[in-house]
């Protein structure tokens, strides 16, 4: 066990855990940040996507010890009030079915848009291909990423 001071969504969280514990489970079990989801545990589905220093990263295979000094963002940090352009776009396009994968989808999209304000269809595809949606909302995810890009410019 070791004590970690984690910088998440602009706040500092303390967690007394084994350093090998994946960030996903620290968020979910220790810090009550359950928006980040478990889907596969082997970096294949994207449900657990968070931002580490601005990069979309799979938290299910990321030992907490490696992010002790990193800037971490989770879905809860997009916006408390769902006003982040990505959240707004996701709502307007009415993307979710079950909704379970959508935190990961949005975090992937938000990381893409923060670096690339005008993503091409190919750019979007390259970013989103790692996130599975079992309900098959891919068409709406595409539309929502496009809409979010427009919103971010305003």
């Amino acid at each position, binding site marked *: *066990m070791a004590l970690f001071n984690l910088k998440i969504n602009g706040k500092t969280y303390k967690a007394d855990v*084994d350093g090998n*514990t*994946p960030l996903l*489970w620290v968020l*979910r*079990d*220790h810090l*009550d*940040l*359950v*928006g*980040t*989801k*478990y*889907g*596969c*545990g*082997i970096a*294949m*589905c994207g*449900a657990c996507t968070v931002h580490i220093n601005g990069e979309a990263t799979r938290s299910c295979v990321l030992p907490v010890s490696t992010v002790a000094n990193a800037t971490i963002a*989770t*879905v*809860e940090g*997009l*916006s*408390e*009030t*769902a006003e982040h352009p990505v*959240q707004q776009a*996701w*709502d*307007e396009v*009415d993307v*979710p*079915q*079950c*909704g*379970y*994968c*959508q*935190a990961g989808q*949005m975090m992937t999209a938000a990381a893409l848009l923060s670096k690339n304000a005008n993503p091409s269809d190919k750019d979007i*595809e390259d970013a*989103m*291909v790692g*996130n*599975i*949606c*079992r*309900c*098959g*909302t*891919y*068409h*709406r*995810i*595409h539309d929502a990423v496009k809409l979010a890009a427009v919103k971010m410019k305003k």
Partner: protein
Amino acid sequence: MSNIQSRRDFLKSTATAGGGLVLGFSWFTTEAFKPKVLANTAADVIDFNAYLAISPSGIVTIFSPNPEIGQGIKTAFPIVVAEELDADWEKVKVEQSPLDTKKFERQLTGGSGAIRHSWERLRKAGATARAMLVEAAAKKWSVPVSECTTSKGFVMHSSGKKLSYGELATAAAQITPPKDVKLKATKDFTLIGTSVKGIDNKDILRGKRLFGIDYKVEGMLQATIQRPPAFGLKLKSFDATEAKKMPGITDVVSFGNKVAIVGKTTWEVMQARKAVKIQWEKDKDLESSTDHDRIFKEMLNSTTPTVQRKDGDVEAAFKNAYKVIEAEYQCPFLPHSPMEPMNFFAHFKGDSIEMAGPSQTPQAAQGQIAKMFNLAPEKVTIELTRMGGGFGRRLNTDYAVEAAELSSIIKAPVKVTWSREDDMTGGIYRPAVRYRFKASIDKAGNMTGYMLHGASINAGNSTRQDNFPAGAVENLLIQSNDYKSPITTGPWRAPITNFLAYAEQAFLDEVAMAGGKDPIQFRLELLDKAQQRPVGKITYEPNRFREVTKLVAEKAGWNKKKKGVFQGFSVYFSHASYVAQIAEMAVVKGKPVLKKVYAAVDCGIVINESSARNQVFGAVVDGLGHAMYGNITFKEGAPQQDNFNKYRLIRYNEVPEIEAHFVNNGVDPTGLGEPALPPTGGAIANAIFKSTGKRLYNQPFSEQGATLG
């Protein structure tokens, strides 16, 4: 027409077949539905009936009884109530009801049946409250009810006076609910048929605690369970000495062939599980996929299959045929793979038990758990969480029951979470099936005989004997065999038809082409026959079948496409809805590439356009993805795929363009969670055949050389 069941009878009988449901509109006859003023939390809330309450501040709370799995029921049900109530949707609050068998019937998500079952009672719930509010206003103003109208949460009088529902709620609650209440004409709907955003969108998008896997109470323990690694094995012994010493672990116990590791956090119990040494022993046959291939052949050669339906004399038809066409189609077992793995919370308290989690069928879970502990059902309370998908998996109660059992053993509140590997290897798969088809045609290409033999592993009757083309063929034989295997199976989105539709629709194309007929024309002729001179009983309405067929042909420009575009057609009736699809392929660098899928859907009245489209798109993507890739194979009882690195799900870059059209014929709404899936595989297989000349007889297609994207 005489032997086509009337719509009403059909609905009644399917509802009853679905599990002894009592139809009828009974909610305001029971005690629970007398209006009463509840001294609730912040503001007083006045209950009008099981579905709705109005607070004096004007907030209308609509209770949604059925579990939300992503099909949009938690938005759709309230839309129907709000429509008849004439509520202001912006001021409607929706709450998920816990399991309450006194207030609600059929708190179930399955069979695409929720809307069908509740359509009328939801409308009456809204309309009755509206009538009470109008009467209260009329009394206050001393005017006749007929001079009052309602809109967006207000009662208005022709003089211009108006009162909000909130202002009227207390007085309205004193009025006896009318027994017969007039419902709106469908043309007067203002909310139904529009696009309403998912009621939980904002919470989902902010990452709120909504799903079963997020559930938490103070002092709750976490558990993971090791189940037998192969079907046919049972627990012999285990040694948890090391595991018990690991950090955070509180207990390791075994029950029912399982070993449960209990501790403080999910990660710790997952780690400790690896340290438990377990011995398994053989209990039943340890089957491999090669055994299944052999078993299928044996069943198809059986001389004593169960005859499901027999019309005319199929053997004579085959003997006198101009041509006989034969083919066999096979599909593998499939896991459901909802994104949220199985999980359930249980807190056993001796004389009662509290449960919470994602269940499509909480009432069944309640019954089984009550029985296990010899408790009255009402002593088992179940909170319904949002479900991260289910696709039929959560119609099984195993994961809820085991959580209850574990809690009773360790005497503590506990949540059991399945890993993806547990979820994928734990069984309750879509059953594997092989179908043999045989058909005869005359010189003109008309189908004179049709035989279907279903051979299945743990599927029961793998046919739908009264479905199309039954009724449209003079000589028909539908029969089945089933093999009992230790591999557990269960319903998978659009049970049976998720594969039967593919096999049948591909085979019908083979028959049409053997007779030189256009595939759509061939089906339309059969449907004409079923309409005009039906043979035996039929469960479908040929007219509606025809309508979706024609609509999709028109939208996709059937037979009108330029060179290089290859179209495949498929149409299916399931869960009381009709869906026709056309898939379009192009050949790029010698390979067929799926470009587009058109869908024409008759699900009666569309309640929420946005959600309906989402369901149709999702079902097409699901049907496509699993037809392309889905496969679980076995070696000595052990599933060979255990996570998404070995089991492929369709991804963002692999979906074709989709275009969906709704017939919207004003007929009472039917289901939409499943019906758009069954036709997809057939449409694609038929398009692949057109573009390559290769007929795909087995799923998954990818193992026969098909690629996507």
